[in-house]
């Protein structure tokens, strides 16, 4: 998402270029890049972009934050920036101030359920929590007696079973066994788990779109450089048409994701319109990730299948992000039910309203 003059996104891009270079990270197996990167991000206020200044955040607009996340996707950023931003945003919904350090958000799947009991304790489990064990705090959306409750939890109070995502980032199971939260507050009226999932969908869609932008750029660059059969492979029509299709998938992902982000920026609540935009973005971006990653790998040939080459940093993250906050299959079923329930003659008015 390129906004004309987005200082926040430009700041983020500078940090990504300086401290999260894909080549450098790929070669640094000891993880020496992690601390300086996170420190620079923190100093710039980016992780708490969506937290008001009164609550210790940077108070950036939703739109600026979305632009940062699109850029993070272009960089295949292997740090919990999106997760911390989302956690800060969730806490802010209920008026809870964020604490310093990396955060993540729970649940990360539509069907996982955390319950806040009468005793004030949280119970339940969440699968596929991105950067779970790298987070100091967790923002939880729980089901309470009187509706949705937002809770701030010390990550050390939870049981965390470590796992990894397709792209190699932390992706963990977080279990709440009578966990006492640091703070709780009611979610605003109308804000529920679906709203959190839809926001997560838009975040992941922007990241997928960003990673596709880079997959396209490096694939075109490679095709213009690699010689086979005495020609640059980019001069073969079959390769050109594959790259044109990759450009199409990238465009679709970019259009769907930026449209959904724009919808959330201008919406008063998580209504049917936001549902359509966010669910459609996640579905279409996930489809684009599959088709786009396949083409990018095809163009690169064997070198793109090596650990040494940076291609996988983008392709595998794009594919992994498909699953977070509800897969495309989940949202397709939900969107299909919404459309069917409204009836055939209301489909076009719904589409045309956007």
């Amino acid at each position: 998402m390129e906004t004309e003059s987005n200082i926040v996104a430009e700041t983020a891009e500078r940090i990504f270029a300086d401290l999260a270079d894909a080549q450098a990270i790929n070669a640094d197996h000891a993880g020496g890049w992690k601390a300086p990167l996170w420190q620079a991000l923190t100093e710039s206020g980016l992780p708490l972009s969506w937290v008001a200044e009164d609550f210790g955040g940077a108070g950036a607009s939703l739109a600026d934050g979305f632009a940062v996340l699109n850029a993070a996707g272009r960089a295949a950023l292997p740090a919990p920036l999106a997760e911390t931003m989302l956690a800060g945003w969730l806490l802010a919904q209920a008026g809870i101030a964020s604490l310093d350090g990396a955060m993540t958000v729970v649940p990360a799947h539509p069907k996982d359920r955390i319950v806040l009991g009468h005793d004030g304790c949280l119970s339940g489990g969440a699968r596929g929590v991105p950067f779970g064990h790298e987070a100091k705090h967790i923002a939880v959306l729980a089901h309470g007696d009187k509706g949705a409750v937002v809770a701030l939890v010390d990550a050390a109070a939870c049981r965390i079973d470590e796992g990894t995502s397709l792209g190699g980032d932390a992706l963990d199971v977080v279990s709440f066994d009578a966990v006492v939260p640091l703070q709780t507050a009611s979610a605003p009226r109308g804000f529920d788990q679906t709203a959190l999932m839809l926001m997560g969908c838009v975040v992941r869609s922007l990241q997928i779109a960003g990673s596709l932008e880079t997959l396209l750029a490096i694939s075109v660059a490679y095709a213009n450089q690699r010689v086979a059969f005495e020609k640059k492979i980019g001069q073969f029509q079959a390769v050109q048409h594959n790259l044109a299709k990759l450009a199409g998938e990238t465009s679709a992902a970019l259009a769907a994701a930026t449209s959904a982000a724009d919808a959330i920026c201008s919406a008063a609540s998580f209504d049917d319109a936001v549902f359509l935009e966010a669910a459609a973005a996640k579905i279409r971006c996930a489809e684009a990730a599959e088709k786009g990653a396949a083409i990018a790998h095809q163009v690169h040939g064997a070198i793109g299948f090596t650990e040494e080459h940076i291609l996988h940093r983008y392709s595998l993250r794009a594919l992994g992000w498909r699953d977070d906050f509800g897969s495309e299959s989940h949202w397709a079923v939900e969107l299909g039910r919404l459309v069917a329930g409204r009836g055939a003659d209301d489909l076009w008015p719904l589409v045309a309203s956007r």
Partner: protein
Amino acid sequence: MTAALRFDPIRLPPVCEQLRQEVRAFLAEEIAAGTFDPHKPQREDNDAPEFSRRVGERGWLGMTWPKKYGGHERTFLERYVVTEEMRVANAPTRRFFVADRQSGPVLLKYAPEHIKMDILPRICRGELCFAIGMSEPNSGSDLFAAKTKATKTDGGYLINGAKIWTTSAHIADYMIAIFRTSPSTKENRRHGLTQFLVNMKSPGIKVNPIAQITGQREFNEVVFTDAFVPDDHVLGEIDGAWKQATSELAYERSGPERFLETYYVLTELVRALGPEPDTRGAEGIGRLVAQLHTMRRMSVSVAGMLQAGKEPVVEASIVKDIGTVWEQQLPHRVRELAAFVDAEDSNHATLDELTAFATKLAPKLTIQGGTTEVLRGIIARGLGLR
């Protein structure tokens, strides 16, 4: 890469929504009056001259053109709304669609003033039907292989040769065509073609119908035998049509007609699966709606960029590539998803009939107005691969 792809999240302004309601009300009146059946896409040779005039009366033709030529000086986004509502309603737009989208803008740019003053107001009133003379029996996608000749004579040119696959030539008042005025050169094989405005009622023009696999009859072969075209009907530069033919493509390639051509089967699928579809049906609808919504947002984005004076040529080609492939596959996806629908359901016959028609129509969608292969070549060039 030359430049990053852009699809700004452009929204239609409020004036468009008011216009949309006006168009819907107008179409509802026309349907009630029996002008057309919204459940029957253009299956017959449904020329509707009176409907065309009434659309003109509403001010919905030449919407973006200057008022002095009968236009309305409205935005591309407003025109967009009228186009998509007509398309979704299966309105009989054949008589005016080409003139409004394509021929008018070419005349505005290249015709002499007196021709503009004569013809453009009549297009705006819905009185004129236009055809496009590009393909020939031995030149389709390879536009610059055209051989039909325009030979200089007193006061004009004599045309000899044939155009083919010419949509609506049998009802058209005018054709905008490219003819060969000089041979191509070694340096530039695109050189030597000139764009002309041809009055279809002039002598020496014979229109032969070509039946299509859908049962429609909108294609024609147009044979020219010493047909006379006056000097003032030359559009633009002699021998330089190649410079002109590509400039308007962004307008032509990214409109709602590039993904809504078979939309009706999706509506009928949703009707057939009912208010509580099973998981498979719901997922199928959800994916198709997500894809449709995405393409429309891409298409509106391109319209907005055009309105802002940008030239999103690559983006427009991408919209047509993705959009036409989607509308081509749609009847097949609908067929799969409807496979387990109870045949006793009330609209099953309609769904079957419409799906069959859309299936027969589908092959043409990725051929007309620039094949998928040509489009991908343009996109590849935009990416810096050529």
